[in-house]
């Protein structure tokens, strides 16, 4: 049977899934709100982990963390099944949920998702979709980053839920059991901001948060000297792809987070939040400038030391701005 699930087009997979599942239960939480309450803003620079030879730069927290934190803070009762040993058991549990009319979120790998456009067929296992119905052995899937709902066969769904590679999903699934209407939204927002501040400013690992951004800025300056020209430009293009392409809503989630701050500021009538939302928007524009500028010389591979220094300076400026923003937020979230 197919439940009356309403699919909304969203920018990022996990916030989209979270807000849609909550809306289905009657709790109106928008996508930016889910981003803020779930503390989705993050930065990590891991030079020792190489993706196709380029250092890994991450802008998102671990998968399903946004869902977990958002629901926890809104007092929503959920079930998260972390992993299954048996593949058939995972599908049976999903079938049982669908029979009871519960839309269920699943962590999947992108590569074998048949409906995605060709350039999104990458081995990336942090994707989230909602399965909301089954009819004649065909599953109905709400894909947050596409406009319309899609269908998948049993075999295909099994394959994407147990995709192989780095960070395997292992059939992870999650669903909402019951919600409390009229939650304490102020408490939830402040708790979300507090965790974000901790992640960006006070994280014990030096590669994370503002410190990580500074480290990346310093390293970009060294690239043209240390690395051959094609490797340096390849590193840069991978960075730009993570900033703009992987469902970030533009500028590495900064715009989504900015709209969260604005929405929260309007809801709570809070001046500092409104003020920081404007600053966050400006930081987002800086990130955009970074990707546009780096696009200019990547193709020709004749980026000089000056070009790389300029890009590094933009990142360092972003770090300084974000430090200021989160220091302000730190004061109000106490």
């Amino acid at each position, binding site marked *: 049977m197919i439940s009356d699930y309403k699919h909304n*087009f*969203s*920018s990022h997979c996990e916030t989209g899934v979270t807000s849609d599942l909550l809306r289905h239960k009657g709790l109106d939480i928008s996508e*930016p709100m889910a981003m803020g309450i779930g503390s989705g803003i993050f930065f990590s620079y891991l030079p020792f982990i*190489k*993706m*196709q*030879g380029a250092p890994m730069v991450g802008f998102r927290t671990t998968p399903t963390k946004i869902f977990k934190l958002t629901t926890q803070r809104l007092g929503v009762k959920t079930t998260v099944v972390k992993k299954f040993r048996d593949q058939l058991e995972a599908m049976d549990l999903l079938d049982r949920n669908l029979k009871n009319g519960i839309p269920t979120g699943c962590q999947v790998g992108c*590569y*074998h998702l048949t409906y*995605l*456009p*060709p*350039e*999104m067929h*990458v*081995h990336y296992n942090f994707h989230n979709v909602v399965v909301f119905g089954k009819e004649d052995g065909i599953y109905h899937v709400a894909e947050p*980053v*596409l*406009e319309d709902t899609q269908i998948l066969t049993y075999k295909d769904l099994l394959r994407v839920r147990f995709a*192989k*590679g*780095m960070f395997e999903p292992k059939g992870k699934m999650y669903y909402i059991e019951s919600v409390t209407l009229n939650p304490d939204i102020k408490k939830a927002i402040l708790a979300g901001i507090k965790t974000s501040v901790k992640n960006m400013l006070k994280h014990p690992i030096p590669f994370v948060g503002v410190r990580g951004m500074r480290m990346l800025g310093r390293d970009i300056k060294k690239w043209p000297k240390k690395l051959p020209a094609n490797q340096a*430009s*390849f590193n840069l*293009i*991978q960075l*730009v*792809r993570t900033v*703009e*392409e992987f*469902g970030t*809503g*533009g*500028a590495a989630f900064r*715009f*989504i987070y*900015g*709209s969260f701050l*604005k929405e929260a500021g309007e809801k709570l009538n809070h001046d500092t939040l409104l003020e920081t*939302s*404007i600053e966050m*928007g*400006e930081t*987002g*524009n800086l990130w*955009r400038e970074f*990707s*546009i500028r*780096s*696009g200019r010389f*990547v*193709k020709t591979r004749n980026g000089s030391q000056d070009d790389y220094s300029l890009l590094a300076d933009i990142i360092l400026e972003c770090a300084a701005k974000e430090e200021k923003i989160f220091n302000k937020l730190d004061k109000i979230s106490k």
Partner: protein
Amino acid sequence: METNSDPVYTDKRHGQYRELFYNYDKTGQFEKSVGFHGETDRVTLQQAWDLFHERIEEARGKVHAGKVSPIVYYMEKNLVDPLNLSMLAGISLWKVKRHFKPRVFKRLSEKTLKKYAEAFNISIEELKNVE
């Protein structure tokens, strides 16, 4: 974020799908818009894809010249690195790196070839012959 109401990818290698963007304008308003990537974004992202296609073509040339095995070509085509490939196929990293040599690749058993073919989602014949 610049958005466009018309499809901008003229390249046949790419599908065309719209995305939801959040953007910020100078008056301090955050807005949502649905559309294709704008001109400036497209140029940047297209360059990234050009770079990948260049790498793939380079790998293809090497395979035809007999310098590396077809596994390298398919690895580049799937945008993975050796470590990721070893996880996908369930073969240890040092073995995967060894299989990059054409001499070693020729002697691989059906069973190992099947593991690679499944990881790349192709048939064994396709794996052996790079077009």
